């Protein structure tokens, strides 16, 4: 059994973002990066499925600049078997269909039984790369997966999808299939020292993609700080305790809940 896990490098959750000078993206210099949160859960779930199955291979794949190798190395240290790096210097310039098409071309010949991704990226948040990729590879997709029935793994896999407002639903999918994984599906393991050492011997294959012209791309014209819909009264002016006193005063006199 072969599982491909798609992972993306994104800006760190706590990074202070500045709009780039052309106003089409953020200024990526001098910001720290991390693995996209839900992609980490996708990797964990693939490792658990392989362990439960007793055999198999977990191949981790990213599309991104050379700096995205950190994501792959980290995944290899956690237990992935090998890695594919689709090298694209400015991935933010690609639209979701182009990203899916480029990844499809890079992994098609792997003939994976399962492909896992996070449910969406925390930067562009398109939330559709996985679904388009499944369609391009001619395999079914399940999104926002929150549990796997690992015992059921065979020619098919039983999985639990999250619906809205606390509803859930189980589906049985014929394999091969592509699953997008929800954050919080399981506890993510740390890389062990042994894992980190072993990762150094694992293969990372670079793929240099060619791009077809894609006429239907969505194009980011301008990036900016959100337009405020509300006037926010900022309290305390940097003095938190003073802010707290002012806040309670407001709750009493303006909001009138005390």
């Amino acid at each position, binding site marked *: 059994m072969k599982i491909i896990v798609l992972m993306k490098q994104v*800006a760190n*959750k706590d990074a202070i*973002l500045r709009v780039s000078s052309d106003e089409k993206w*953020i200024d990526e210099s001098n910001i720290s990066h991390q693995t996209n949160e839900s992609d980490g859960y996708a990797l964990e779930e693939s490792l658990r499925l392989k362990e439960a199955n007793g055999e198999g291979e977990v191949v981790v794949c990213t599309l991104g600049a050379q700096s995205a190798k950190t994501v792959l190395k980290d995944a290899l240290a956690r237990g992935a078997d090998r890695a594919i790096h689709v090298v694209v210097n400015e991935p933010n310039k690609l639209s979701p*269909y182009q990203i*899916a098409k480029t990844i499809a071309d890079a992994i098609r010949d792997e003939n994976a039984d399962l492909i896992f991704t996070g449910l969406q990226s925390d*930067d562009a*948040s*398109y*939330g*559709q790369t996985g*679904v*388009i990729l499944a*369609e391009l590879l001619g*395999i*079914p*997709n*399940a*999104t*926002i997966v929150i549990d796997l029935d690992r015992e059921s793994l065979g020619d098919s896999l039983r999985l639990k*999808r999250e619906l*809205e*407002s*606390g*509803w*859930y*639903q*189980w*589906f*049985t*999918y*014929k394999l091969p*299939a592509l699953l997008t994984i929800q*954050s919080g599906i399981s506890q993510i393991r740390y890389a062990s020292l042994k894992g980190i050492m072993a990762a150094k011997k694992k293969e990372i294959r670079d793929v240099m993609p060619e791009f077809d012209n894609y006429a*239907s*791309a*969505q*194009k*980011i*014209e*301008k*990036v*900016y700080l*959100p337009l405020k819909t509300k*006037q*926010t*009264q*900022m*309290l*305390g002016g940097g003095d938190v*305790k003073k*802010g*707290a*006193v002012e*806040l*309670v*005063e407001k*709750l009493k006199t303006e*909001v009138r*809940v005390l």
Partner: protein
Amino acid sequence: MSILVFIEHKNCVLNKASLEAVVAAQSIGKDLGLKVSAVIPCSQDCALVQEISQYDLEKVFVAKNEKLNIYTPDAYADAWEHIIKQTNPNYVVMAHTYQVRDFAPKVAARFGKELVGDCIRYTNNGGKLTLTRRIFLGKLEADVTIEGAAPYFVTFQAGAFRGDNAEKGSSQIETIEVEVKDLRMTPEEPFQEAKASVDLSKSNIIVAVGRGIKSQENIAVAQQLADALGADLAASRPICDAEWLPIDRQIGSSGQTVAPKVYIALGISGAIQHIVGMKNAGTIVAINKDAEAPIFDIADYGIVGDLFEAVPTMIEEIKKAKG
């Protein structure tokens, strides 16, 4: 020249987000001079069809096939492919629900297209739409245009339009028998995990905690504030995922939707998935270390700083105020 809008339902009960999509489609239709028709995939004599036909729409298409009885991405994608090929719309408009996220990119891909997803508004630039969506977990907004030929696929975030603004009128009902190929997945019945034992939708005041609370032990700090205010305690998703609070305390798209008189967000950054569950609160208070956290964009009152400094002072002051 037309717009198709998707009507989502479970056993012929409308998903209200679809009415917001109808409003979006009607508004775009007016701006661009396009007629709007609705699409309802259903296998039976859908009770919803009459209800939807009371809106100002050109047509209500009922996509019929027995495989549309219970939702699957394969059946819905096949039905939509059939309808789009038959009607040649310029735009396909949907609400950005979990179900739409599951099948809409697949439909778009069959036409060599992608979605402009989760939009919060649009502007009309001389007959072409500029769509605005949030990126970087809501910290930034992006204006987006679509190139190439129609159809264009657009989804709107919950709350981007008001469903009760849907214009009434009358529309013609047309049934289309759609082809659905073999399904590659077998659905079971949807179910509710644990019936929410706490109904936060009736709370007057809510104190909600996010990642900024840092540990399970610190939940007590928020609980004390809630007690002082006579408020209910709630949380964002990561807190419930970590099981620091039970899932029936979760606010957001995967949890409860609330509109209390006051909502106090402690250490909650304000990811879109959380905001959709609480943005209709009367007064929103945000306390967060990160001055750029998106929660401040929707807050009425904000304090930038350590919640562990602010909360004890608040409790003291509340006790004084209550005498």
